[in-house]
């Protein structure tokens, strides 16, 4: 009997299995209820009592060996044969698509600016899109007959002859948030104000009746043009790369004095041109007075830029309206 066990062990050890059918044959032959191993156990009763322990042990070893061989062969076959050779295991079949979420390119552009300003120590503030005349114009030093107050440029939401009812407009810039911030916060103030603004203009590839701006304000004792310049330069370097070519030049805004504009060189050395990217300046003392900040004690700088314009430059988009069509074929380019 022990000889039979040794022979069976040898047979199992050398048995080769190369495919699933052979594996099944192996299982039927050795491991099934009527298989050869199980049959041996049935015969255990006829083994002399003194040998039973040794034979039983040998039979158990045979059973374990058969199971081990089966498992090994099965693993090998599953890993190689079954998956790569079946039709449904063909890895080159296409996979179903999975829904991909994405941020709008304007959000991406604003996020990038926020990140930069965060590094520069600025927080984020916001204000309403429906704004009163005081915050949108008067406090920002727009004279009463300034062309920007004309109906052509500004959407009015409420107009009243009652002196206690202020005219309401859709804000034409994010600068009113500066005023709100200064009204409610004691300097030092260092904040950016991103948001949606409106102009009552005809729609064309270059202009849309709403767009987005990011405004920055820094108010403290002794803030100077030198600080403004340093911050602007750091910003454009972080936004456009440290080798960006830039220049500052005088500009004009009612709410800053002096006012500066910044251009960056766009395109190749030879065929490029200067492109205006932002307007800035030192907060006009009249603005401080309107917002209740002591203009003798504090100075400050402010700057603003159009998000669409920056996104257009960054991604080479040729029509501003594309941003508001929400074509998936456009949006998915910003996955």
């Amino acid at each position, binding site marked *: 009997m022990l000889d039979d066990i040794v022979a069976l062990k040898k047979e199992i050890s050398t048995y080769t299995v190369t495919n699933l059918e052979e594996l099944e044959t192996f299982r039927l032959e050795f491991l099934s209820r009527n298989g050869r191993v199980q049959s041996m156990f049935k015969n255990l009763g006829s083994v002399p009592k003194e040998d039973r322990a040794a034979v039983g042990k040998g039979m158990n070893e045979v059973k374990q060996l058969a199971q081990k061989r089966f498992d090994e062969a099965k693993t090998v076959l599953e890993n190689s044969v079954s998956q790569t050779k079946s039709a449904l295991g063909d890895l080159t079949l296409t996979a179903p*698509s999975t829904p991909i*979420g994405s*941020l709008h390119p304007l*959000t991406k552009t604003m996020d990038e600016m926020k990140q930069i300003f965060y590094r520069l120590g600025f927080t984020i503030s916001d*204000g309403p899109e429906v704004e009163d005349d005081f915050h949108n114009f008067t406090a920002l030093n727009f004279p009463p007959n300034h062309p920007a107050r004309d109906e052509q440029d500004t*959407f*009015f*939401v409420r107009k009243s002859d009652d002196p206690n009812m202020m005219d309401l407009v*859709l804000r034409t810039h994010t600068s009113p948030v500066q005023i709100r911030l200064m009204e409610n916060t004691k300097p030092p103030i260092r904040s950016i104000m991103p948001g949606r603004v409106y102009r009552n203009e005809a729609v064309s590839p270059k202009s849309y009746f709403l767009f987005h701006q990011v405004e920055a304000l820094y108010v403290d004792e002794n803030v100077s043009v030198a600080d403004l*310049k340093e911050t602007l330069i750091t910003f454009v370097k972080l936004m456009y790369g440290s080798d960006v070519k830039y220049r500052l030049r005088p500009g004009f805004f009612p709410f800053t004095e002096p006012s500066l504009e910044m251009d960056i060189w766009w395109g190749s050395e030879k065929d490029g041109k200067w492109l205006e990217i932002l307007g800035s300046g030192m907060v006009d003392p009249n603005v401080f007075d309107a917002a209740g900040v002591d203009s003798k004690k504090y100075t400050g700088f402010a700057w603003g830029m159009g998000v669409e314009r920056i996104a257009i430059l960054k991604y080479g988009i040729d029509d501003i309206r594309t941003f508001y069509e929400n074509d998936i074929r456009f949006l998915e380019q910003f996955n």
Partner: protein
Amino acid sequence: MKVSYKWLKEFIDLPLSPANTAEKMTLIGLEEEDTFEYGSNLEGVIVGEVLEVTQHPNADRLQLCQVNLGNETVQIVCGAKNVAAGQKVPVATVGTTLPIKLDDGSLITLRKAKLRGEVSNGMICAEDELGLGTDHSGIMVLDSELEVGTPINQIFELNTDTIIDIAITPNRPDATCHLGVARDLSAALNLELKKPEIPSSSKVVQSSADISIEIESPEKCHRYVGKMIRNVEIKESPSWLKNRLMALGMRPVNNVVDVTNYVMHELGQPLHAFDYDEINSKKIIVRDFEEEIEFETLDHIKRKCSPGTLFICDGSGPVAIAGVMGGLHSEVSDSTTNILLESAYFDPGSIRKTAKAQTLQTDASYRFERGIDPNLQAIAAERAAALIAEVSGGELNDEIIDVHPVKTEPIELTLTKTYLNRLLGTKLSIDEALEIVDGLELEVLSKDEEKVTFSIPTFRPDLVREVDLIEEVGRLYDYNKIEAPNHGIFVSTEKFSEWELLISSIKKASVELGFREIYSNSLISEKEAEQFGSLDSMVGTLNPLTKDMTTLRPSLLHGFLKASAYNFNRQASGVRFFEIGNVFEQSKDFSYHEGIKEQTHVLFGLSGLKSIEHWTSKPVSYSVFDLKALVNGFFTKLGLISGISSVLDEDVLSYKFGDVEIGTLGFVSTDLKKKYGLEAETFVAEFSVNVLMAALEKVPEKEFKPIPKFPAFEFDFAVIVESAISAGELMEVIESKAGKTLQSIEIFDVFEGESIGSGNKSIAFRLHFIDPNKTLNIKEVEPIINRVVKTLEKQFSAELRG
């Protein structure tokens, strides 16, 4: 404003090329918008001799000319009636570029061409085609003595120039003329400014025998100067005068009008020339009217002028809209012999109002609106009168009429070293600052180490405060030269606001849940808005340019539906969008401005196919439960899920945090879908971010909870209830009866069928129970289930399914 490089050079010895001049102008605040070459050196245009003229066989109005060019004789097709054999004419040979602009702005280059079947080797030119004048009545006939083949540019002095078009900011009225621009450049480049020599009349009078001038509205007309020129001969201007104007893009008119335009571009004073003999009663009255006035201007347009419009009148009535445009009647014509020249100062606001009302911006109104020098009028009148006399043979007398009811004196301003350096971040001394602004004609009244006091010339109405002077120093110093501050970039200890953090968490969560962000219009049309409620409760715009921009969106739904339709029309199979934006309504519960509630909302929307047909599965449409699952994911991401409940409110699911409504989720109605052309089932959820913000403030700070040590006990059961009973109602009872070991409820099967009786449904629940202190077994759970089922039986006549 167009600036001629050549003209600038009359006032300063510019050492810079036109391109460098333009760049310098930009750097001192006179921003270059465009620079272009004017005129041509006429290379390739030569003297030709017309040998023979014959009729073009295929065109009545064209002729075939055989022209001798010296080394060859060529055929040229010509349309001018005055061409004749024997003439010497200017011929632009093939390859020549002429100063004639095509529609795209480029210049014409002549090619050998066939005109109606006949070859033409060049062009016989008219005066205007060569930029030598304005005559276009026929070809230019040259002196018969000229030698054939001589280049034209050896015969005529050519009018070439570089024109720099600059943007003048509203604070710089002084720069709306060549002398003003030259002054700025002279200050920036330290060059001497050469002003033209201007004579002055010996007698300044209030009225003369020739004319009386009366200003009835001195608040609108501060000053009115008149100057007589008699016995003028109205004719074409000399070429130096025409060339200056043509280079700036103006059409020469006659010698008198051309001089007024010339002086305006030179000194910045708009002038008007009247035919003196047409002035009724020899009287000028400057006044406005209480009633509307109809008046025909030079451009032959009859204009209705609102009450308050300022007019120049003579004895019989208005002759000009002050500062904007003259009238037809007193216009200078070929028969004019005597001229009354007007040089006035009009209030900028009054002119702006009139020009805007008439939608008429003229070179004059452009300057008056910005505010010209209130002390320039007599000087400009003298300058123009002298020039008119020179070019028209007119006679001047020694009188100038100067009515000046409102005088403007120069103001005094002090610049202090401290404020200057504090604001610019520089270390300039007063002397250095003075050197920088030298050339601006700021007159120093007194100075010491700490400060300097100036008398500000009246051509700079923008300089009224110390800070305005600091800007002058800054812009002429060049901001690019200001050095970096010696302290570094600041550091902040302030964090982003909770609001900002919430907005970015919402965007992040939405993207992670597979939504694409859209940006839609916040201004929509009334027609679109009406679909979402009553217009009375919405916020509208009073003056939209088009009907598309009448109403501020009351919700984000329109934007989503529009974007979905847009994409389905472009072969998209499904959309999965989110948007964050502000919505508006009229409400007593206002946010910033009384009556107007402005809130930030977030919308999630699904429509169409979730997955397209694929070998792994059949096409699958989005279901409302996909949206519900995503919304649950959203609240989970925000850390709000445990406080969120939802109840069915008619057709929509209303979400609450505690007692406060956050928003809703539901189907887009068939009716609404139809209006947008949407076919697929569409689902949206919209929540108020402001309410979410308030909810988040109530959520305690996140704290670690130990992971359960003991396994959960799972129990399944199904009940049969009437179809009208919602799962939510059943779950509410289950939750309230199951006690605190209940961890979660899932619904794993919903069934309707004959086998359970019509009008009934079966819902199968799987409950998870967890006890943190022990492994639960059936003995502990069974009583709970019994309690739950009993209540369901009692409240809903539910029947436990076997």
